[in-house]
């Protein structure tokens, strides 16, 4: 962390930055094109992987984390907590069954026109059978 001598901040040549920008623009093009391809359940994963590749480029080159181990640890530590927050929440969501209070006999409608604890068929807006 502490640099005791001055000028320990290496100057990155503009060419590197220009190449990073080019890579970012190419990845943006790819992510737009990929959104037209159906990967089934992997759609969101593909989008997030490409976004993370772009984010890594920005953090490493534009934010100079390549030469900045100390702050990289701070940043990645923050991301780690965010990952725990997100992934554990999604574990819960993925494994949830509709649970009704014991004194309630009818399913809850979350908002007018909503399915009763289950997904909707887009064409009709009606419940599609039973909940997953």
């Amino acid at each position, binding site marked *: *962390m*502490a640099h005791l*001598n*001055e*000028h*320990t*901040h290496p*100057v*990155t040549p*503009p060419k590197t*930055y*220009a190449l*990073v*920008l080019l890579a970012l*623009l190419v990845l*943006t093009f790819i*992510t*737009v094109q990929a*959104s*037209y*391809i*159906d990967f089934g359940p992997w*759609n*969101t994963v593909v*989008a*997030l992987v*490409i*976004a993370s590749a*772009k984010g890594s480029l*920005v*953090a490493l*080159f*534009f*934010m*100079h984390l390549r030469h*900045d181990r*100390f*702050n990289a640890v*701070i*940043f990645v*530590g*923050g991301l780690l907590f*965010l990952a725990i*927050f*997100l992934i554990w*929440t*999604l574990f819960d*969501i*993925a494994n949830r069954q509709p649970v009704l209070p014991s004194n309630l006999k009818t399913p809850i409608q*979350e*908002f*007018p*026109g*909503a399915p009763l604890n289950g*997904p*909707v*068929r*887009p064409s*009709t*807006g009606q419940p599609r059978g039973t909940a997953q």
Partner: protein
Amino acid sequence: MSTLTSSAHPHADHGHTPFLQHHFREMSQQFDAAKIGMWLFLVTEVLLFGGLFVGYGIMHARHPEAFMAAHHHLDRTLGALNTVVLLISSFTMVMSVWAAQTDRKKLLILFLLLTLMCAGVFMVVKYFEYSHKFHEGLLPGKYYSHKGDTVPGQFMFFSFYFMMTGLHGIHVLAGMVAITWLLVRAIKGHFSSEYYSPVEITGLYWHLVDLIWIYLFPLMYLIS
């Protein structure tokens, strides 16, 4: 961070600039301290937006059809344009840091101006997107008044859309204020290879705003 010029301090051997605060031993120590402070702040920003992303994830998982249908109201072309504009602004911002590091005052001013322009373009595009949504009645929560939906519950998508892009837009505006402040100081000739902490630190903030948009764009515009 403050622009106070300290009075002549006893350490004349490295008192090249008037911008060294008296409580730091040397410029690089001041620079590192400022940078750590900024990174800690950026982590809090990540967690602030992170909470919204988690909420988005929950609602998207529970109501996939509603989110799917709602995102068709968004214009992908404008979203992609804004992504490109913001990426270019990140590049010009990092180039202004480079210009400061290499004592190129004219280029520093030029790149700061370009960054400001890109941010302005981003906000103008946002204005057109938002006014279109207002006009269509695609508003968050109970204000949603769009007619003729076949899929119910689309208001939830717009609650997240406006909360997340709105908070992001406020960050862009704050970034524009910070860059304007840099521009004023750059014109005054404050920055050099010796002292460019404010440029570097504003740059870090600006790249984080860009980073958040990198995730917002596919999640909002490219659901498939």
